[in-house]
């Protein structure tokens, strides 16, 4: 029989304005087993918590119900408070009378009635709570970073600097990511490569960092502190140890047709290639889909010219298995496909390009060697129109509902750079809003308008029409002047929305990390835990969590690293004690529970069972508490009810049901 204390929080007026907390206290006091009930303005405050401790001491409470905000907010707080007061932390239950009650109901009578019922359900549950002890599990002091862009690189360097081993898995042949594709960066106009390359080199040469490029995460099992990850190292067909990066193979390769991914397909590359000059590692890969030797067996030119004998056509994909304590997702982004935006004529005209393509065109290592020219005829454009929010802030299902955040600034950057380098080229920007909330951002934008004469028009473009003479007719609207605009242009640049790398879905599933409707990974808490995933041991770095620019990405990368370091610094972790447990007297040994366990936490043993004096040897299920994550799938599969979940036992949940329905 429990002695239960019920503590009702006002949460200032958040609860008390809608729920009659005194009434809840009054009703609680009448519940069976309730020996103490009180209310307080802020239960979570120091003073509030010490009231709990005082009541525990005075009344000898064995269980606690706090009627307050969501347990997702303060369950941990109250469990700690209980522990300090000398009660097992799992003897605490929260009745959520804020998010699930006071905030959604207006009528005080109704809300109070509901709060009383929620309180009763929690009291009914606590009656059946049992003290639970957290177990311990070891921490593997090594981190995995998925994605080798600036986010992944920065996270890896920060973790490595703290003295922990880090592996980066990058699916392309080189680390560097999107940032390596950029020409200049806003708002300082630094050369992107100039600031990124040293970081890449630092990562590559760091004694604690291992880089797996041309590799993908294949399988993840385990849990925080103890992940086991299979990494597929795709066949490179080039021996990394022998290759000197001389580049002869690429010069000689006769297969020159594949589109150059690094240059966004604006030109071609060879079948054996390094994506860009500063690639790390500076070892080419052979694109098996284009390589003549691999496709037909004839050719072998690269092998012939390679002086160190690094070419190896017999290489196979290799799966390596590694142990990690923490995993950081830094999978970055891509621009959305524009297939649904036929009005911009992106697929019709070579002179309608995305901003990222413009980056490559502006870049000295790009398809035009840095000359601003039309891809259709190589002529210098004299009229350029930028269109903002292509696919961003979109209310229909063609695009994304969110703001891609970086477009306003990079468009200002592009416009400014063009006006600077090609003063006789006119630049017009169609925008919905210009958003410049960042350090030196608005100043930067104003310079584009005021100093560089970029023509900003508030309004949307309805249609881009390729003309017979090769020019483009842009039909838009000027909302400030309230008039239709028809503008002839030589080039149209689309500020295309960004979206999480499409592979993130697969990775999130492997990691059991949740993703939102836009495929961005979900944070454990949007404000208070923005770099952690809800899945313990999985952290978020960069745009995989939400649109952000480079400094924000680097900041988040560092934050994720700190979280990882904090985890790896521990030798042991407390495990969740709310795990499944099998009653061996009832277990049939039928194996159904093991079939549904996602963690392989259930095994079977032949055991001598003493059932009230009747001895028998039986096959029974045994749960590994360190592996079990407490989902409860096994409990429902078990027909005899032998398998139960601690903290959410059958009888506890039924007690809640009964209390609600009574």
């Amino acid at each position, binding site marked *: 029989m429990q002695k239960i204390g019920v503590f009702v929080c006002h949460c200032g007026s958040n609860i008390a304005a809608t729920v009659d907390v005194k009434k809840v206290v009054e009703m609680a006091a*009448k519940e*069976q087993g309730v020996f103490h009930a009180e209310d307080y303005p802020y239960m979570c405050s120091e003073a509030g918590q010490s009231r709990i401790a005082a009541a525990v001491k005075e009344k000898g409470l064995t269980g606690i119900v706090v009627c307050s905000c969501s347990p997702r907010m303060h369950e941990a707080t109250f469990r700690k408070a209980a522990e300090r007061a000398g009660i097992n932390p799992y003897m605490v239950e929260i009745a959520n009378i804020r998010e699930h009650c006071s905030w959604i109901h207006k009528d005080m009578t109704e809300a109070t009635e509901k709060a009383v019922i929620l309180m009763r359900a929690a009291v009914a549950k606590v009656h059946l709570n049992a003290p639970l002890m957290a177990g311990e599990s070891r921490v593997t002091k090594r981190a995995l970073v998925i994605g080798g862009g600036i986010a992944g690189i920065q996270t890896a360097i920060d973790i490595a600097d703290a003295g922990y081993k880090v592996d980066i898995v990058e699916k392309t042949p080189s680390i560097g990511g999107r940032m390596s594709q950029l020409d200049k960066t806003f708002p300082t106009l630094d050369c992107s490569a100039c600031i990124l390359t040293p970081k890449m080199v630092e990562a590559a040469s760091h004694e604690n960092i291992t880089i797996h490029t041309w590799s993908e995460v294949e399988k993840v099992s385990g849990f925080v502190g103890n992940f086991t990850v299979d990494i597929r190292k795709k066949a490179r067909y080039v021996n990394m140890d022998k290759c000197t990066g001389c580049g002869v193979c690429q010069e000689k390769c006769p297969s020159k047709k594949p589109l150059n991914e690094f240059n966004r397909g604006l030109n071609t590359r060879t079948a054996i290639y390094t994506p860009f000059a500063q690639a790390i590692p500076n070892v080419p890969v052979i694109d098996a889909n284009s390589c003549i030797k691999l496709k037909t067996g004839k050719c072998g030119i690269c092998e012939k010219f390679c002086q160190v004998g690094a070419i190896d056509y017999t290489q196979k994909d290799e799966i390596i298995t590694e142990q990690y304590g923490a995993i950081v997702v830094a999978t970055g982004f891509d621009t959305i496909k524009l297939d649904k935006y036929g009005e911009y004529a992106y697929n019709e005209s070579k002179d309608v390009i995305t901003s990222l393509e413009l980056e490559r065109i502006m870049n000295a290592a790009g398809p035009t060697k840095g000359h601003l020219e039309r891809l259709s005829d190589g002529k210098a454009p004299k009229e350029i129109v930028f269109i903002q929010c292509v696919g961003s802030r979109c209310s229909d299902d063609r695009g994304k509902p969110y703001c891609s955040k970086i477009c306003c600034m990079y468009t200002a950057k592009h416009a400014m750079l063009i006006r600077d380098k090609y003063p006789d080229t006119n630049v017009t920007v169609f925008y919905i809003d210009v958003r410049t909330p960042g350090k030196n951002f608005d100043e930067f934008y104003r310079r584009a308008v005021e100093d560089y004469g970029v023509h900003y028009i508030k309004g949307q473009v309805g249609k881009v029409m390729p003309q017979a003479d090769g020019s483009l007719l842009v039909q838009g609207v000027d909302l400030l002047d309230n008039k239709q605009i028809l503008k002839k242009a030589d080039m149209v640049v689309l500020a295309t929305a960004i979206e999480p790398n499409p592979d993130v879905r697969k990775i999130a599933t492997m990691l059991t990390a949740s993703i939102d409707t836009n495929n961005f990974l979900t944070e454990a808490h949007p404000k208070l835990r923005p770099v952690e995933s809800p899945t313990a041991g999985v952290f978020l770095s960069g745009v995989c969590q939400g649109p952000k620019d480079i400094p924000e990405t680097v900041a988040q990368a560092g934050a994720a690293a700190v979280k990882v370091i904090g985890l790896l610094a521990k030798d042991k972790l407390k495990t969740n004690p709310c795990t499944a447990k099998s009653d061996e007297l009832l277990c049939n040994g039928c194996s159904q529970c093991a079939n549904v366990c996602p963690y392989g936490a259930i095994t079977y043993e032949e055991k001598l069972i003493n059932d*009230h*004096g*009747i001895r028998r040897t039986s096959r029974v299920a045994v749960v590994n508490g360190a592996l079990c994550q407490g989902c409860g799938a096994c409990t429902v599969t078990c027909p005899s009810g032998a398998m139960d979940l601690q903290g959410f036992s059958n009888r506890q949940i039924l007690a809640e049901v*009964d*209390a609600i329905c*009574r």
Partner: protein
Amino acid sequence: MYRIAKANLNALYAAIAASKELYLPVRSAGKTNFAAWTEGAEVDLDTLKTVRSPKDAFFPQSENLYTCDRTDGKISITPEALQEKPFVVFGMKACDVRGVAVLDKVFLSEPVDSYYAARREKGIIVSLACSRPAVSCFCQTFGIDCAAPEGDVATWMAGEYLYWLPQSEKGEALTAELAALLEETDDAAVAEEKASIAAICDRLPLKGLSLENWGAAAADKNFDSPLWEQLYKPCLACGTCTFVCPTCQCYDIKDYSTGTGVQRFRCWDSCMYSDFTMMAHGNNRTSQLQRFRQRFMHKLAYFPANNDGMFSCVGCGRCVDKCPSHLNIVKVIKAFGKEGV
């Protein structure tokens, strides 16, 4: 002796139901069981044996004993009201009527079970002779004459009439109440019917079933017999035999949570069940052999030992018909009778 035309029985039922509850065999979803009579109910007096016995009328499968309620921190206890309205159980067979006598031994001896006693007081038994006894019947073994059933009123179906004979004060009173529907007649038809029934009873395969080696003396004698080991094996440990039996009287007491309290109720239990008389330390009978033995030893040895030789089996044969494994009390009686001990 009275009689009423079969065609007029509905009027009889209605007349009884006007002032009393009336339970009688009703066919529903393909089976005949005792149920409360309602206008339009499919009364079935032709089926010899209802699936469950009419013992429900006096000892229901589940019944409330009292209700505890805790509202506003105060506890109230309300005992279940005893049966007040008189009721008639119509169409009970001779074996089932004897079954009630067995229950009386249990529930009316000290301490008297007030719930049962109230029902016995208010209940009027109108029995019905068995015009077509069945192969599983062995009531003769227990000295029951299915042609002349006991009860407050005994009835016979013969020709186009139901013949009606009050046999007790209660029966006389009921007859008086129904006088308008009953006509006086002589015994001739009933005597003929009795003779016809007796002729059939003579041909019943279990006619000569002997209770030799049973009775009070068997309590110690049969307990350790190796025969149990062979007999119990096919037993599924279900409660079919118990729940169709007119004399099984074991019950469990449980609490049903109403949210603000409990309803304490009792419900039939079966000694065949593995959780029968479960206690904190487990069960006192740990094997199905023990449970199986208990059921038959109780009916054929312990009960007679404690009740002046009265067996707690009335030979209705329901368990013979219904056992999923075709095990039954007859096989047990015979096993010991044939082989001795």
